């Protein structure tokens, strides 16, 4: 019996001993395996891998949710030199699909730079082309199993986003573009580059599945909603293009702003470009300032500036709307004679008549009565010579010469009053005049309506930048400008709506002298006068069919004002008044 137990015990001990030996053998084997250094290296690296993550750049929408700038997937196609088996087959397939030179691909694979184990053959490859190559790779791999010779092993595909502009050239001067390195240029893309972000980031990703929760989350860029109205932008661009053709103008811009909030609804400017082909920029624009005329190109605005001179005169109490003066057709300021636009004397006029007939002599009289200190103080408070602060890249400040500047002369006090010798951008003059439309308060123009990040939307708010004139002055001047348009029977009027505005015809200085055959024609107006919903600025560069703003820019204003009224659902004054009464 005892002997039997002893035999069994020995058997159990042998089995246990064998298992123990097997365990020790396995431990020794693993310690000395060829993969051990690799495992140790991973351990030393904290079991992580360096990955390149491509977060999506934030999208850009118009105020009604239409996508203006989005992202599409493209491929980086490369060859892993450590696993490539048939370089000739890879070169052939890629060459056929992408149209890249066969010998160049083969040369890149055979002659890589020293220490390089991965060669990029092509980047920003179209999604469909990349997918076709991927399918081919899969098919060839299956064929190899069935006895076929050669496949695309080693050919790698890395999907990453690329900026895409579905509206092509629409609002191109507002949006700007992104180059292949992911940097924004011009407009929104440059101004909000850091917010939109979406640049590739290299992060360490843990290989250990137990550390999956530690995978770095790289957030996508912030989505932006603009104040721009896509449909109105399209209409403005079409009207502008037609106007350039009709009036033979060299260029132009149409800007529409809500004067109560500063929201820019439209900035149409010429020329425009297909943003998906940003590399064409150099062939379309000669200077960076041409990209958006409305913010980057200061010019002498001419009679449109008379609105500000009259506002200053009314606000300082020098005149009232009923104040009259005798227009003799000329005035001597700083030793130089200033004449009316037609060289004629207009006799006795009140201040509304001054605006209606756009009399230079009247304005020079007002500015000299105010004297330089007060006049320039008003102009500075209106924002002339200062940046408006619009959230677009590349804004120019313009130039307002003041006494004390080396290039200021006493005659400038007279000429500046009717918009000569002072350089402003269209957006500057709109910001200044917004104080007239908006009961004395200037608003900061802006294109950003809201930002969306982490499923939350943050709306921007209206910024009042100053009150250069009183509410009473602003309302009085609005009435005067509306009356002057009606008395004149302006081509800018739209039936059913009371509008205020002013034409501008500014001769262009050439080699220090004004050329009477070359003008900048413009019109600045807003409406409805009692509750302004839009302010429109039209600027046509050197129209050839007529040099006058009243014959070129004013009818264009009427066209775009009518379109604005329809697209913004603004009822005629009589219906609106009925609504208010109810």
């Amino acid at each position, binding site marked *: 019996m005892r002997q039997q137990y002893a035999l069994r015990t020995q058997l159990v001990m042998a089995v246990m001993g064998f298992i123990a030996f097997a365990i020790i053998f396995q431990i020794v084997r693993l310690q000395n395996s060829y993969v051990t250094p690799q495992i140790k290296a991973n351990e030393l690296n904290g079991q992580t891998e360096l990955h390149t993550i491509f977060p*999506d750049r934030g999208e850009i929408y118009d105020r009604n*949710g239409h*996508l203006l700038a989005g992202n599409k997937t493209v491929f980086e196609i490369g060859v892993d030199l450590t696993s490539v088996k048939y370089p000739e087959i890879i070169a052939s397939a890629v060459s056929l699909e992408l149209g890249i030179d066969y010998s160049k691909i083969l040369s890149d694979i055979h002659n890589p730079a020293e220490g390089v184990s991965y060669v990029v053959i092509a980047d920003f490859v179209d999604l469909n082309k990349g997918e076709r190559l991927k399918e081919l790779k899969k098919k060839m791999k299956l064929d190899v199993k069935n006895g076929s010779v050669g496949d695309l092993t080693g050919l790698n595909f890395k999907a990453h986003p690329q900026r895409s502009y579905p509206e092509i050239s629409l609002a191109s001067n507002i949006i700007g573009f992104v180059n292949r390195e992911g940097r924004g240029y011009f407009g929104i893309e440059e101004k909000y580059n850091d917010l939109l972000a979406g640049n590739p980031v290299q992060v360490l990703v843990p290989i250990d*599945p137990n550390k999956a929760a530690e995978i770095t989350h790289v957030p996508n860029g912030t*989505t932006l909603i603009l104040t721009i109205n896509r449909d109105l932008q399209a209409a403005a661009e079409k009207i502008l293009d037609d106007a350039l053709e009709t009036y033979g103008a060299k260029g132009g811009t149409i800007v529409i702003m809500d004067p109560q909030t500063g929201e820019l609804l439209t900035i149409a400017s010429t020329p425009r470009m297909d943003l998906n082909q940003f590399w064409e920029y150099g062939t379309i624009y000669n200077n960076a300032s041409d990209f958006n005329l409305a913010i980057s190109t200061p010019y002498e605005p001419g009679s449109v500036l008379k609105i500000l001179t009259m506002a200053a005169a009314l606000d300082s109490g020098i005149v009232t709307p009923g104040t009259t003066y005798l227009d003799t057709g000329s005035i001597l300021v700083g030793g130089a004679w200033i004449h009316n636009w037609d060289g004629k004397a207009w006799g006795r006029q009140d201040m509304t008549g001054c605006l209606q007939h756009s009399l230079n002599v009247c304005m020079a009289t007002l500015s000299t009565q105010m004297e330089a200190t007060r006049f320039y103080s008003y102009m500075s408070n209106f924002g002339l010579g200062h940046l408006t602060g619009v959230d677009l890249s590349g804004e120019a400040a313009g130039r307002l010469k003041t006494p004390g500047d080396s290039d200021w002369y006493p005659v400038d006090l007279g000429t500046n009053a009717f918009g000569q010798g002072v350089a402003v951008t269209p957006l500057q003059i709109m910001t200044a005049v917004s104080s007239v439309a908006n009961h004395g308060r200037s608003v900061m123009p802006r294109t950003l309506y809201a930002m969306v990040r982490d499923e939350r939307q943050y709306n921007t708010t209206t910024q009042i930048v100053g009150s250069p004139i009183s509410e009473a002055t602003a309302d009085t001047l609005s009435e005067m400008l509306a009356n002057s348009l009606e008395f004149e029977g302006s081509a800018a009027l739209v039936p*059913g709506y009371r509008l205020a505005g002013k034409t501008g015809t500014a001769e262009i200085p050439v080699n220090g002298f004004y050329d009477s055959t070359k003008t900048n024609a413009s019109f600045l107006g807003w409406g409805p006068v009692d509750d302004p919903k839009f302010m429109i600025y039209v600027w046509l560069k050197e129209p050839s069919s007529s040099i006058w703003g009243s014959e070129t820019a004013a009818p264009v204003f009427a066209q775009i004002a009518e379109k604005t009224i329809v697209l913004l659902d603004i009822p005629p004054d009589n219906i609106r008044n009925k609504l208010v009464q109810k």
Partner: protein
Amino acid sequence: MNIQNVNHLVQAYKVAPWRVQRQWIVNLLLAVLATAMVATLYLDVTSKAALAGREIQNLTALITESQQRSGDLQTQLASLTSASVMEQRALDLGFRPVKSEEVEYLIVPGYFAPEPGVLSSASIPQLSALSIPPEYNESLFDWMDEKIVSSSRGR
């Protein structure tokens, strides 16, 4: 056989060396069994965690892929409904731009025009991930530590 002999036999049985040995073996086997059970449980949990982790990694990759696909489709949709395309489609269907004097305005009581630019419906902070109860991700030591800390606070 008297009662004394019976007691003697029982005593002899209790102190038999082979019985003591068997008790030791049984105790040892129990200890081995308990260790094996713990090891099995540990292996089971660890392997499940590893599988779940791998699934998370795969799902993360899938999310990225889906987001890219979604972005592609969104951009394609925007191209198909761009201003120029929609205008052309409307013209092809026989529509023409309306003039301001042709528009009729009706007063609809209680109607408010929609606010522009509302892309996000979130008015309250959104949680970025589902909250997981601590029972599913804390270790035995974490649980004990938490219990000790909470009981000491209770005092």
